[in-house]
């Protein structure tokens, strides 16, 4: 599997304590932040299960998240950015899409039990190697939780991808439901030592602004894991919500709406501004083995 060329992009991986904690959004923000900082940046999600897909310029099908992340990075999306896509097509049936093209349709139960692990890892390694060759930074997104102890061998999307990429991992917890500490600490505890070694720190998402509570939780988490909390991101409306907002404003300011839609990039800049402000960027650059921004940072959008 050691097929990486010597020239390697810097990498960072975002994993979460569960689905819907905001991994995609944070990876999207990272793509725009590093792009604005002067690095040629690409998104990567090795394995995705989604019905929402994005068509690349050459007609390949990838997860919609990587399509948006490519837009945020101001590059064209390619099939390498999400080489494995599992698409539920009918009850109990999934379509396996490999590098943008239908590979096969199988029963969900068959997919869960099949032994194509080596083939999938090969596909992931090759796509990753190509991106690492073409770009300076690759922002990798995990899927679900890396600590599903009933699935750890099959789970190529999280730690197995992190090991292939030698990526430092930031673990995202959802602050909004009073379980962020249990979720992050529990994930850490369930990971084997070789996976724990890849963790670089924690991020909290959907932070309600209660600083005292954040400090308490961060203190305990760091004491238990010896890893830092590198940021708490406030509750941000995701990009689709932002678009809904644009629609709502229509009646009031029609011309401005048209302008905003033309500049869809503004949403990525707003997101990147908010996330960049909430994170310890110097420490994140350090984890990636980079000194820092290549050029001066924002804010890009005046609020």
């Amino acid at each position, binding site marked *: 599997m050691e097929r990486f060329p010597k020239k390697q992009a810097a990498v960072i991986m975002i994993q*979460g*304590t*569960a*689905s*819907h*904690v905001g991994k995609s959004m944070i990876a999207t923000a990272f793509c725009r932040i590093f792009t604005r900082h002067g690095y040629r940046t690409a998104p990567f999600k090795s394995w995705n299960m989604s019905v929402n897909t994005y068509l690349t310029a050459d007609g390949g099908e990838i997860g919609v998240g990587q399509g948006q992340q490519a837009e945020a990075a101001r590059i064209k999306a390619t099939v390498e950015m999400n080489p494995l896509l599992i698409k539920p097509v009918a009850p109990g049936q999934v379509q396996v899409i490999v590098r943008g093209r239908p590979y096969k349709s199988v029963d969900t*139960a068959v997919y*869960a039990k099949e032994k194509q692990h080596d083939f999938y890892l090969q596909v992931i390694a090759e796509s990753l190697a190509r991106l690492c060759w073409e770009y300076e930074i690759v922002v990798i997104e995990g899927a*679900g*939780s890396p*600590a*599903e*102890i*009933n*699935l750890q061998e099959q789970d190529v999307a999280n730690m197995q991808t992190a090991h292939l990429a030698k990526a430092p991992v930031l673990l995202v917890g*959802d602050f*909004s*439901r*009073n*379980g962020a*500490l*249990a*979720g*992050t*600490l*529990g*994930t850490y*505890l*369930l990971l084997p030592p070789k996976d724990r070694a890849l963790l670089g720190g924690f991020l909290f998402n959907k932070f309600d602004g209660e600083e005292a*509570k954040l400090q*308490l*939780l961060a203190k*305990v988490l760091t004491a*238990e894991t010896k890893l830092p909390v590198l940021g708490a991101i406030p509750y941000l409306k995701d990009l689709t919500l932002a678009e809904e907002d644009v629609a709502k404003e229509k009646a009031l300011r029609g011309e401005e709406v048209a302008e905003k839609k033309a500049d869809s990039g503004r949403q990525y800049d707003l997101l990147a501004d908010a996330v960049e402000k909430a994170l310890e960027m110097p420490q994140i650059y350090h984890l990636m083995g980079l000194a820092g921004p290549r050029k001066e940072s924002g804010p890009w959008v005046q609020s």
Partner: protein
Amino acid sequence: MGAVLMVEGTSQGAGTSLVCAALCRYFRQAGYSVAPFGAKMLVKNMWAQDFGFLGWEQFLQAEAACLNPTVNLHPVFLLQKNHSYDLYWQGKIVAQVTWHEFQHAFAPKTLALARESLEALRRSYDLVIVDGGGNPGENKLLQQEIITLDIKEKLKAPTLLVADIEWGGMFASVMGTFALLAEAEKAHIGGIIVNRFRGRQENLLPGLEMLEELVQKPVLGVLGYYHQVPLATAPAQLAAHKEREAAYQLLSSALQEQVDLSFVMQLLT
């Protein structure tokens, strides 16, 4: 004095309220007189009664237990209003407070009232099912869910932990919760109920066995996703009484089919 069963979750919204409603109906049908008790400090939705307001969830749980809601079922709670809270005291709004003000001016009185109400229920019913708030591992640290903490400390009530698996990360949330508890606190937790599982149970079983080994507690059952149950929706969309009754029956049957209730019964005796 009636027995007390505490139900806590791995996070807010893990499904304790639904599980409490199911337990209320199950034990009522098994021939016990049952009352729910709302211990959650923060309430999102309330419901009006002749005595005033109580949490929406306690209203439903009372129905499931076949009793008319009284002020003791949910004696004190906070309703969030932007950056402050409306404090409801025995069904009536008595003050608008910040969290800080609540802690300093009302917390001791709150605990006294909650204890009195719970005692009153225990005198009248065989069993009180407490809908606890917050993650038990984080509660002590954050000191927000003071009624839940107080009941556990004072009564050492046996506790069921509801673990939400809907978006994954369930094993981690349970593991982390136990890692945050002291030995004495762990001792009260009788077992785990996995909630909102949509896949095939046979795929989950090896993981559940590993989890039992890791936290040294039994998984008492796995509940499915009851999106067809018209309970979890906001009060404005209250389903018809007939539908609600069907829902309580469904929940009670699900509990009987999926959860080791004889073990729960042992916890109570």
